[in-house]
């Protein structure tokens, strides 16, 4: 996608966000709403300037947003699955799985190295957070019940 089109979309998104915020803030009573409403209008105006500037003299050169789409999307996807698994499998099991699975998904094939690193790393996290700092972390759902 060209820089021009990207900036038009970017400006449009910010303008819409600003207007929505201003509309919502207009419903707040008294001085509570004036400040966020003003900010909403400022964002909308600046967003419109970005979009108009892009329309009038934006570059038609392509601008790269994702340098390596498969790797980036894989990381974001596996990261999201990890976050979804944390409350189900508990923090440590989900984390161990992430440290084992993500490098493999990204093409790292030294399995023994991965296993040893994962074990040491999760062990260090456990010692710091659960033993030393005594922080309560999500437990597996079957233990929570």
């Amino acid at each position, binding site marked *: 996608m060209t820089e021009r089109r990207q900036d038009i979309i970017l400006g449009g998104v910010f303008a819409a966000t600003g207007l929505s915020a201003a509309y919502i803030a207009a419903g707040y009573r008294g001085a509570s709403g004036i400040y966020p409403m003003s900010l909403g209008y400022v*964002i909308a105006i600046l967003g419109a300037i970005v979009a108009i500037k892009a329309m009038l003299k934006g570059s038609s050169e392509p601008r790269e947003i994702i340098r390596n789409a498969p790797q980036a999307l894989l990381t974001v996807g596996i990261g999201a699955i990890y976050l979804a698994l944390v409350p189900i499998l508990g923090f440590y099991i989900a984390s161990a799985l992430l440290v084992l699975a993500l490098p493999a998904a990204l093409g790292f094939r030294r399995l023994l190295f991965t296993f040893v690193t994962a074990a040491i790393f999760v062990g260090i*996290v456990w010692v710091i957070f659960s033993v030393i700092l005594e922080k309560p972390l999500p437990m597996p759902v079957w233990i929570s019940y």
Partner: protein
Amino acid sequence: MELISQIFGGVFAFGPIAAMISASILGVFIGALPGLNPVMAIALLLPLTYSMEPLVALGMVAGIYNGSMYGGAIPAILLRIPGTPAAIATTFDGFPMAQRGEASRALKIACWSSAIGGTASAIALMTIGPVLARATLYFGPAEYFWVAMFGMASIGVMVGKDAVKSLMAAAFGLLLGTVGLDQLSGTPRFTFGEVWLLSGLDLIVILVGLYALPPVIALAEDRDLKGLSASALKLESVKVPWGEVRSMIPTWLRSSLIGIGVGILPGAGGNIAAFLSYNAAKSTSDDPESFGKGNPLGVAAAECGNNADNAASMIPALTLGIPGNVIAALVLGALMIHGLQPGPQLFHQNPGLVGGFMVQMLLTSLLILAVGGAAATRIFAQVQRLPGVMLVPMILVLMAVGVYVINGRVIDLWVMFAAGIAGYVLEKLDVPLAPIVLGLILGPMAEQSVRRALLISRGDPTELFTRPLSAVIALATIGLIVWPMLRAWKRRRA
């Protein structure tokens, strides 16, 4: 006298000392690893500091900051890969020196220069900070409002390629700062009926997402399966003769002053300080052609300049509550975690803590000499052999655990993740992230100040402009925004 003994008593206790040493070592490791940066490291560290003593937490922040700014020089010199953006200028002469077989000498010069720059900067913080804090006692709500606006405007104008996008990001940050219960009237704003949003968006959660996730995605994109091969370089210990050290003193003095000046200015960072120092060294040299071909003075200027920015950037942060750069913003976050409000009151209410942090900035600058020596540098060079793809899940886990322990809520993990993805996309679209963070920090201060000023004046908005001090800061703010626009307009007409 009592204050001095309180400061030194606090700093030289076991906890803060251990924190400074371990964080300085960790900082050099982080700086040495391309892809990791001090902002990310401090953002990841902040959630951990909730349960720590303030001086232990601040000692860790100071150690990581100073350590990583030096650590960035290691891959810059050995591999021509700047470990941090501030180390870009170090590659110009550092790498040619390494190619000539003088890697160890270049690293030693970088180590000394970093320590000297950092020390000069800490001394500036210790001397200028309290004076400025005293001057700000004359500030009322109107002045504070304009100071916040000045900080936002200077960052908006100076950071990023497009001033409009930067200002848009700043306004968006200010808007994010309004989420939650209005502190003056108790009205819930932008909470959409969600109870967890009543307390507002957690600064640290957003910070971790914005600053830690984009580099993680970038590391994954690099798909580094082998790590770097810095171990092949010869790093035997060398002695730098006294004559050469003496010849660097003017460069160190000049670069320290430049770095301090840049640090005080909100919006400018270590990379600008390094470039300005490098250019100054080159333009004052008898042999400017040798720069870029392995001149040790180039390494000395760049490293001294970027470290001289470190503590100086804390001057507006600690005295006015206006962070000079993102790391200063993170330090404000660390102070807020411990219930301390940056600004002039901080110096009066917690002089021991502020003084202690200043001393810690000084000590951690000197610690670089100990942790960045020849043997240590050889070990740090080995760190670069870690495959990047192994670091990706480890940082994700640290982000998750760090964010979860703040409030014990899974929802925060998703907020962090969303902020990170937004940050990744916005950066690619040339929207800088620093103004968003600063807006989030300064938003409540700006809103409360303007509303208090209007309450005092019974709704008369001229109160914001008619006080002499507020008028001066307001004019400076307007000038800061209008001046670049006028220059661009004149350039177009010419």
